[in-house]
């Protein structure tokens, strides 16, 4: 059941990854090298509990390998937890890595349709938003070129322009603002501030502490798969920096 205002509910979530040292992929290898299939279980997340509400902008911080991206992937339902439960309420979009869901041979315009339909929009809804998306991406006449000819910055602009214009209730972003020039970064931050005002929920994975301080209402520090600290961004960052520096 959805509690009032709650958008993302994470309850006692555990996630293990199997690390194969030398994975036997085919049947032949499985039979011939049955003993080669050594694997090691690595606990990536241990008993995570979080409740994220309407209008919150949450930053997930922590050193590399602390489970931030895994938690974000669990929220998008790309992977599933081994134990525990994750529920999201409302429409969700995610920007996990650059160019998620783009088809390289299609033009930028065709990819807008393709990408937006992945987020569950109908043709009519995409038609209405098409101009906004193209304007936001500032791609101009490049929009009709195949996406494989784009630079990584252009790729990112298009991906971000789509994700931000699909009217989602929840936006999940993984380390994406690292790309793009200053002008576009500022523009994205402004747009996200607008969305925050509208009461949308956002979760970021980031290493840029300035962005966290400037923009987020809450910071969650993950350390070796557990929530080390959860609270007001300035306090969490202070503790985090004290430990890691």
């Amino acid at each position, binding site marked *: 059941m959805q509690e009032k205002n709650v958008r993302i509910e994470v309850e006692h979530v555990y996630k293990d990854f199997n690390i194969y040292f030398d994975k036997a992929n085919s049947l032949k290898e499985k039979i011939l090298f049955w003993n080669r299939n050594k694997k090691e279980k690595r606990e990536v997340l241990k008993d995570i509990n979080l409740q994220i509400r309407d209008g919150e902008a949450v930053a997930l911080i922590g050193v590399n390998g602390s489970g931030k991206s895994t938690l974000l992937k669990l929220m998008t339902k*790309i992977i599933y937890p081994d134990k525990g439960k994750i529920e999201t309420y409302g429409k*969700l979009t*995610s920007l996990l890595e650059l160019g*998620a*869901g783009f*088809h390289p041979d299609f033009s930028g315009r065709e990819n807008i349709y393709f990408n937006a*339909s992945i*987020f569950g929009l109908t043709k009519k809804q995409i038609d209405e938003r098409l101009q906004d998306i193209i304007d936001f991406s500032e791609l101009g006449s490049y929009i009709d070129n195949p996406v494989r000819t784009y630079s990584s910055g252009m790729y990112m602009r298009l991906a971000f322009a789509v994700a931000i214009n699909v009217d989602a209730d929840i936006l999940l972003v993984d380390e994406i603002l690292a790309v793009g020039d200053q002008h576009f970064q500022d523009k994205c931050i402004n747009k996200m501030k607008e969305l925050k005002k509208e009461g949308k929920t956002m979760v970021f994975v980031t290493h840029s502490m300035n962005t966290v301080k400037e923009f987020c209402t809450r910071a969650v520090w993950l350390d070796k798969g557990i929530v080390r600290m959860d609270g007001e961004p300035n306090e969490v960052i202070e503790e985090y920096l004290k430990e890691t520096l």
Partner: protein
Amino acid sequence: MNIVKNLYKYRELLKTNTKKDVGGKYKNSFLGILWSFINPLLQIAVYALVFQVILKSNIENYAVYLCCALIPWQYFNSIVIRGAGVIIDNGNIIKKVYFPREILPISVVTSEAINFLISTIIIVIFVLVSGLGININWLWYFLIFAIQYIVSIGIALIFSSLTVYFRDLLHLLGVFMQLLFYATPIVYSISDVPASISWLLKLNPMTYLIDGYRSIFYNATMPNFEGLLIVFIMGIVLCVIGYLLFNKLQKRFAEEL
């Protein structure tokens, strides 16, 4: 019933994906969509040469006889082969963004079904050229087509999810489909098969479907409804198994790819 709701919600994705498949298949080839016709025509020519001229089959209008079976078989064949690879081929998207994964096998089946509809023109041309003429029983085509679609969905769901875990299936299926081609009454008639092994052929859903297409186009009679009912039930069972299997296996797709 979750699957129906999901499919409706993501209908636009299903549509773009299917369109991409149908149009994109021959995108960079010189003859384009014409390959949809040239391919089966060449195959019919080869089989007709081997079985009619060299092996002297006594079936009348052998080219038409062959054509009614070969075109549906090609549809079935591409479902199995392309369906088996569809999740692996789209690994990039699956690892990055959520959408109902069953969209992928279903859009393969749908785009191949559209290709099959287009190729059916070949059957019609063969029938007309050989002087068999149009008859009212052709209307049953749509019923048989619908049943084959259901069977195909089930098969695509099963193989698309299994190959993610057992990559050998991709290669095994290539060989298996060649064997199955001869274990299906395509180049011969089921009535020529000794009773001792014909039960084996009756386990194969394509046996009934091809018999149906042949009845309406080649014999100009009504299809065998008992056979169609059997294959319809097979289709439903395959869909249920496919759905349960796919649902279970899809949870770890992003990790296995």
